[in-house]
């Protein structure tokens, strides 16, 4: 009974969970293994899942936590976000006005640019824009403050802008 119900959910949500794991883990680990492990964990705690809640966010939380733990395990000694944990928004260099924003680029280019982001920026971007997680959820998953989430997201977008602008400039030159 449990297996049948779970199987249906597994088939329905595999793609999204796999995508989440692949984006969170980047090149650093095998996303397929991670996805299996996430579902194994979900299956184990399936008893605690309330059927009236949507399954997507529940499994995404498990996947997020698992992938972050995996990444943390890889760099046990240095916390993922220890650098400038709190940022004073007033003195922050990112606050000198919006540069050129990301403009219509094809999805593939954007996804490649996201993948190339350093881990500390990639994780909040994936959680916010792929998983549609709220600032609170991201803060909890990553173990940082809400404020820090906002800073990381804006910095990430700035990096993406820079990268995509350079790329399109190079494209035009050619």
């Amino acid at each position, binding site marked *: 009974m449990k297996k049948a119900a779970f*199987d249906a959910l597994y088939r329905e949500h595999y793609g999204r969970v796999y995508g989440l794991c692949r984006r969170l883990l980047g090149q650093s680990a095998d996303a397929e293994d991670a996805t299996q492990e996430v579902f194994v964990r979900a299956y184990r705690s399936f008893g605690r899942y309330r059927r009236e809640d949507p399954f997507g966010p529940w499994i995404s939380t498990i996947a997020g936590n698992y992938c972050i733990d995996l990444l943390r395990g890889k760099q046990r*000694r240095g916390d993922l976000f220890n650098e400038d944990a709190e940022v004073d928004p007033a003195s922050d260099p990112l*606050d000198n006005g919006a540069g050129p924003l990301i403009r219509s680029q094809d999805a593939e280019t954007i996804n490649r640019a996201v993948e190339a982001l350093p881990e500390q920026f990639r994780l909040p971007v994936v959680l916010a824009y792929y998983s549609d997680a709220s600032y609170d959820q991201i803060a909890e998953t990553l173990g940082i403050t809400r404020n820090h989430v*906002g800073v990381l997201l804006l910095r990430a977008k700035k990096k993406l802008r820079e990268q995509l602008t350079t790329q399109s400039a190079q494209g035009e030159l050619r």
Partner: protein
Amino acid sequence: MNCPNELTCSRFVDNGLDATEHQTVSAHIRECRACRTLVDSLTAERKLLREAMQTAGADGVIPAFIPRPTIPSLLVWLGWTAVALWGVGVVWLSLADTLTLPAWLSWISPTAIGTGIQVLVSTLLPGSTPMDLADGLLASTRSVVIAIAAIAGFGWLVRNQPGASGTALLAFCLLGPLLAAAPESHAFDLRRDEQRVIVGPDEVIDDTLIVTSEDVLIEGTVTGDLIVAGETIRIRGRIDGLVIAMGESVQLEGTFGGSVLGLGETVDVRTATLASNLFGAGERITVQQDVEIRGNAAAAGEEVSLHGAIGKDLISAGGRVTLLGSVGGSMRGYAGKVELTDSARIAGNLTLRVENADAVVIDPGAVVSGSTEIESWPEERNRFLTIDFYLGKVLQVLAAFLTGLVLFRFVPALADVELAGSTEALVTAGIGALALIATPVLSVVAILTLIGAPLGIMTFLIWLAALYAAGIVISGYAGRLLLPGAEGRAIPLLLGLVLLVVLSNLPFIGGPVKLVVGILGLGMIAQWLQGLWQARRV
């Protein structure tokens, strides 16, 4: 308000501001055209980013989902069942005196389980002493089951129950084995005196008795175990349980229901009857003529003289071993000199390993019914030249290989541990060295406190298992280093194990290799456990 900065606008667009802030910004952008433009373009940017990221889904086929039954969950069920059964047993035993069951329900009594095992054992092993063996089996089964329960409970706790209920469970898991291994009577009698402790001939002690004093004389009856430490120890009474006596001079003259362990400068067994085994170690071990030992005897000492009747086998080691009595089974001796007098009788075989053949004197009246084999020990064959040695090593590698596959199957993280750099290697080695030395020391300390003995023994067993696993983990790691491109875990593991067995059996470097492997492996396991502890979330 002043115009909000880009960070605030970005958080506004992401819905990441709290309600008041959100309202303020919302009101501001209705008024301020510049900010409205910024917010609009940030919204467009967000939309573009979201859509782009959402497009690519899963690639390829969805692999089948096989929920594997994990060892932890299996253990948890087994463990809790055992704990529940044991709890019922304890409550039952305490009620047993006041409550009598109708005959048709008597099978649920915990004592009935013991009887069942006894019947089973005496059926399966005819000729064995059912009482001893069954009790031993019952006790060790109980210890093992409860140890599994404790470990499973603890593992489950670490994974699932941080917080208060977890602490309570942990306390229960630790307390369980302690209580379970307490003697059935749930108490022991402790007697301590600087100079003298005497248990008179009419005294009956229904508990385990522990005595420490300079001069100890036991003439009464002890129905439980007896543990004595002193300078002069004389035991003349009847002891039903196990006897452990440590002293300068130990004299045993009574009737003993369980095994007897005597450690002392002199251990002298006179006119005693032992229903079970005798273990004696000291400078001079003497078993007098009127002694009957129904079990086995093991005696090690500078001067060992055995006169009584030994029901089963005899193992003896020492400077000089003299047999004057009879041995119901075989005799094995490792000694400088061995003498079998005219009165010596051995029903089984005689195997002796002595300094040289001249050191064995067998008087013409002595009878050995089985075969006699005498080897002189300096000429021990080179172990590297025997087939048994290599066969043993192959089996050792195979056993470790299978264990490793099972281990890695259920704990894949141990198959992926690695040392990132020299600093980390040093930290790992430090933790490993600590685990290697501190754990057995702590176990021994716990065992010495008696009440902590079950916990100590359990810790020690876990330590042994971890040490074995350490070799496997290191082998797996070494194998992966040597075969970086290998598919799967089996081949690198096998290579690593073969390498480890070869290296650790080489003369001179074998010992250090084992030490380093133990230290690093234990360190890696300890760090993995630490990681598990930190990542307790789902």
